[in-house]
């Protein structure tokens, strides 16, 4: 195992001290859905409310100045965290879903017309599928999908063939929330650009777990949420290349996104405010900044290595259990996500029994119904790992699965 000091890390997360029932500690294996929050993130938000709470940007009083400074400082942190050229390329949204919807509603409506091709993949979360279906219905677009192989990888031959049809946009997930597959984003993006397409990378699962460098990836858009990276819910990010964001029409109308307003017209504000109408989630933005500080202090490389060690171990142990099938590629090509079925047992029953043992996993289609259709399964049970999980927790999980097997076997 690598050198993450999990005992020290676990002490940073108050929720990890709780028991699900007397004597049964929480084993949280659902970070892919949302990560737990360290005390420093909660404290940063509480400090803001206790000492500096004020609306941002227009006020001239001390609290407003402090709130504005903290809000914009977090934007600098985000920019630095992903390697953006400027903080003005960082747009605050509610979450990954809103970031993608923003692109569909503004860039999409301005640039996509009848017959235009949008390439997605068969492994997309509904958030990177439904917005494009909605726009396709409105604009009569063509949607095509890079197929997923039986190993849970994207079929690059299929992608190459689709690229020959002059796509306008290629939008795909960096890391599958079901299979755990880490897609070769840099290559896929570069191929899309060669074909003249704009790219959108859904980084909801990759940003919390891997070092992500915008300059290296060169994607046109990137979307992620704070809550999966130890930050609060209700705040997400859309990164966009400056020239593309500049050319896009605004998203929602209202306060803060305007430069001038007359009774019958308005002119939009500069980036990034052009896309941030209304009072934003100020405390959550500050919480996200604290989460970035926290993750960076530990190190994204170290976190990725820790996740990798856990998934290697978990896959090894899962193979021991009769009737268990794990979906997705080998540990070398995936993050810390194990979605599996157990023969003769419905995933909901697996999850229910694991809960009795204090283990939190997720059961269902994980907002990726088409992918489950592809594998001819209605649902899977998903265990996912993060920086606070340990090898002994994997052992608890495996022992509990044996109990499920015995109960139903």
């Amino acid at each position, binding site marked *: 195992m690598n050198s993450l000091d999990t005992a020290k890390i676990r002490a940073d997360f108050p929720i990890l001290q709780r028991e699900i029932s007397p004597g049964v500690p929480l084993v949280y294996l659902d970070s892919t859905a949302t990560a737990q929050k360290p005390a420093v993130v909660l404290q940063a938000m509480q400090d803001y409310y206790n000492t500096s709470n004020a609306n941002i940007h*227009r006020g001239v009083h001390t609290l407003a100045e*402090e709130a504005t400074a903290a809000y914009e400082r977090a934007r600098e942190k985000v920019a630095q965290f992903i390697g953006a050229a400027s903080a003005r390329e960082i747009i605050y949204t509610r979450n990954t879903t809103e970031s993608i919807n923003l692109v569909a509603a503004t860039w999409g409506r301005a640039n996509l017309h009848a017959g235009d091709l949008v390439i997605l993949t068969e492994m997309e979360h509904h958030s990177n599928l439904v917005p494009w279906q909605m726009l396709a219905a409105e604009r009569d677009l063509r949607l095509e999908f890079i197929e997923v192989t039986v190993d849970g990888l994207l079929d690059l031959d299929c992608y190459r063939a689709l690229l020959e049809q002059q796509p306008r946009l290629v939008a795909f997930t960096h890391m599958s929330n079901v299979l755990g597959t880490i897609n070769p984003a840099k290559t896929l993006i570069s191929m899309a650009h060669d074909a003249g397409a704009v790219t959108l990378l859904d980084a909801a699962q990759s940003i919390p777990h891997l070092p992500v460098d915008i300059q290296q990836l060169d994607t046109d858009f990137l979307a992620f949420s704070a809550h999966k990276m130890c930050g609060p819910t209700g705040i997400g990010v859309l990164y966009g290349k400056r020239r593309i964001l500049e050319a896009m029409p605004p998203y929602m109308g209202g306060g803060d996104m305007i430069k001038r307003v007359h009774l019958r017209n308005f002119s939009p504000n500069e980036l990034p405010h052009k896309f941030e109408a209304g009072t934003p989630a100020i405390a959550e933005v500050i919480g996200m900044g604290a989460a970035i500080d926290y993750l960076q202090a530990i190190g994204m490389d170290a976190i990725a290595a820790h996740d990798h060690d856990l998934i290697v171990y978990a896959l090894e142990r899962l193979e021991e259990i009769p009737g268990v099938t794990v979906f997705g590629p080998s540990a070398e090509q995936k993050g810390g996500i194990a979605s599996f079925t157990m023969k003769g047992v419905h995933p909901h029953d697996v999850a229910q029994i694991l809960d009795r043992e204090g283990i939190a996993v997720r059961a269902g289609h994980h907002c990726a119904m088409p992918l489950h259709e592809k594998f001819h399964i209605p649902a899977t049970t998903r265990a996912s790992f993060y920086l606070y999980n340990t090898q002994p927790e994997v052992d608890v999980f495996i022992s509990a699965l044996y109990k499920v097997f015995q109960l139903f076997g």
Partner: protein
Amino acid sequence: MEDLYREVIIDRYKNPQYRGALEPNDITFEDDNPLCGDHIRIDLRLGESGRIVEAAFDGHGCAISQASADLLIESILGKTIEEVRLVKKQDVLDLLGIELGPVRLKCALLSLKVLKAGVYGLGEASDDLIEV
């Protein structure tokens, strides 16, 4: 608050030296601060040597935005366009001699933003102009 409203700022606000309009002019530009509605227009006249021989501003807004414009105009008289392009955010803050938070900074730097958009011949002012 004494700091923020130094005598020079109140004085320049009440009795600006360079408020007005130049018609005709060689360069003119105007813009707003969307946060509070401050407005500044700057007109410049160039001499045969290419130096700024006359300059004026007009507009409305808080004492900081208007005093900053007046001080900035004074500081660029006699300079070439190339020299004005090199004026930095800190130069304006030094003229004002005060420390400002992020909200009031926008007020203080509106005139610099307008001036720079003018001397660069831009169609639109951008916050990039006052980032350094």
